[in-house]
């Protein structure tokens, strides 16, 4: 405690320098928190969505594992037939072929995501809990059902025209209530017009609904065996894949933020080293009075740790605030909180900041504790 006060006094004795160093660590930590918060946000959003997905199994072409939205229309009708045969033998409840089409650019406000559903199937089968706010719940032959957020964003109402291509257009026949899920941002259309637009008879994925008591893993493996060239993913598979993909992207983003962290660490090291040089005599006096080397070492390391911890905590707060602001925007635009400062991310950020301080403080501390007393006191 006393040592801590001694360190604090020293930092306060040079307020401008301490503040600048603190700002360096703050910016480094905030940028790291922000970078990594996107991974946490995506993880949270994906798992929330995936856990809501109705069908227990998604069948996609081999090599397109992961996210069903990214799959190209590569499953031909014959494969669907073969799957239906196999499914019958396995006693599955239903097989739902589906197709995806994305229109627009990077700006979420001008992007549209269409999901094609077969006749008689509504979004409620895939996204349990969705309800119609206006009109129908299921798409009809020339009619689309629009997610709540898309409708609001693009000012669509019942009867509004939706142009899929110059040749193909539909009318809005239903608007869904906002549920906070992915369905809010999708437009559900019948399969046929979407296939016309894409010039294919194929499907992107086939969703398999099971009867109660059926084991998703076992059915998935049996389907893969029955129809080669396909990957039958259970929700667990997708979650594992998503986790792997997110880990890799976490590492990449951490790598980028490492640059800022290294700069922050060098700032702390520089500040503490300067402080050590300026206080050589003071350390000499302490040693002359009877302080051991370890006392001086701890004093200097603690100074670096304190700077890093203060900077880290403030950086975490700033990162959290910016993440909150980003979420306000993305929630409004795409209905998803893209960034999340989770407890484990906060803990990680503080640990990284502390490690930074420790590493930055070690060299100056070692130097300070090894200066000969006679030299430090100028008594040579």
């Amino acid at each position: 405690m006393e040592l801590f006060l001694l360190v604090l006094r020293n930092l306060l004795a040079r307020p401008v320098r301490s503040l600048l160093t603190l700002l360096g660590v703050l910016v480094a930590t905030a940028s790291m928190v922000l970078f990594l918060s996107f991974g946490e946000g995506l993880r949270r959003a994906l798992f929330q969505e995936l856990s809501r997905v109705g069908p227990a199994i998604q069948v996609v072409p081999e090599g397109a594992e992961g996210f069903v939205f990214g799959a190209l229309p590569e499953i031909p009708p014959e494969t669907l037939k073969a799957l239906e045969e196999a499914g019958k033998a396995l006693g599955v409840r239903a097989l739902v072929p589906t197709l995806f089409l994305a229109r627009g650019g990077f700006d979420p406000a001008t992007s549209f995501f269409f999901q094609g559903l077969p006749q008689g199937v509504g979004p409620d089968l895939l996204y349990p809990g969705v309800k119609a706010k206006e009109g129908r719940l299921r798409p009809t032959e020339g009619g689309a059902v629009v997610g709540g957020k898309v409708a609001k964003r693009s000012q669509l109402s019942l009867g509004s025209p939706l142009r899929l291509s110059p040749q193909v257009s539909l009318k809005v026949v239903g608007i869904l209530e906002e549920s906070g899920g992915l369905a809010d941002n999708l437009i559900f259309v019948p399969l046929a017009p979407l296939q016309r637009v894409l010039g294919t008879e194929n499907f992107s994925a086939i969703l398999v609904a099971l009867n109660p008591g059926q084991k998703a893993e076992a059915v998935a493996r049996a389907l893969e065996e029955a129809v080669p060239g396909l990957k039958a993913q259970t929700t667990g598979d997708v979650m594992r894949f998503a986790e792997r993909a997110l880990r890799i992207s976490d590492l990449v983003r951490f790598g980028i933020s490492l640059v800022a962290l290294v700069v922050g660490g060098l700032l702390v090291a520089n500040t503490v080293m300067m402080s050590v040089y300026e206080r050589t005599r003071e350390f000499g006096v302490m040693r002359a009075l009877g302080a051991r080397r370890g006392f001086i070492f701890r004093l200097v390391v603690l100074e670096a740790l304190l700077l890093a911890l203060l900077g880290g905590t403030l950086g975490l707060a700033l990162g959290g605030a910016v993440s909150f602001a980003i979420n306000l925007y993305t929630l409004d635009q795409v209905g998803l909180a893209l960034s999340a400062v989770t407890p484990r991310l906060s803990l990680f950020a503080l640990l990284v900041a502390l490690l930074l301080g420790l590493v930055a403080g070690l060299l100056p501390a070692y130097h300070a504790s090894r200066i000969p007393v006679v030299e430090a006191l100028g008594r040579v």
Partner: protein
Amino acid sequence: MLRAEHLSKRYRQGEKEVVALLGFTYAFPKGATAVVGPSGSGKTTLLNLLAGFDLPSEGGVYLDNLPLHQLPEDERARVRLEYMGFVFQQWNLIPTLTAWENVAFPLLLVGRPRKERQERAFALLERVGLAHRLHHLPSRLSGGEQQRVALARALALDPPVLFADEPTGNLDAESREQVATLLFEAGKERTLILVTHDLELARRAGHILHLKGGRLVREETPKAKG
């Protein structure tokens, strides 16, 4: 008792060897002993060796038969903390600590609780006439006041040996007298080793050791004479 036996210190300065102290032998009695001599006579080197700041090239320093020169650095620091007090020419107070905190610093190093440290520091500062300056930082104190704080700090753990290196060198006449009186007062009940240029100050000590060219050339006992 502090004792030096055949104490020598040699430095290398490029190709040349410099002898800073040669064959110094002396047993410091209780009371004040002044070490005098011109610049370069080896006074500072002697104090560095006696206090364990530096190690001798030959010979040894013994504190009640404890061979200080054979102890590792941290052990010498412990001995200094428990048995020695220091007053330097440049006061050497810790600038970020207040007067009482500076005095209490050795007590902090031995792990005494805050209340005890505060009581001891307050009492010592009162003894050196600085009861009204307890919470002042060194930068707000005059030279004489800073030196009195340094003296109080040297006495914090009531050490049997007290070193004073030119303690009045940077002070005006009034402060000089104040510090000298307090110093010799404290030196009555312990071994005080006073290194100084100031012969007048030295004459107030029981013994005077004259150094020249790194050798002890003469020993005087002015009070016994007088």
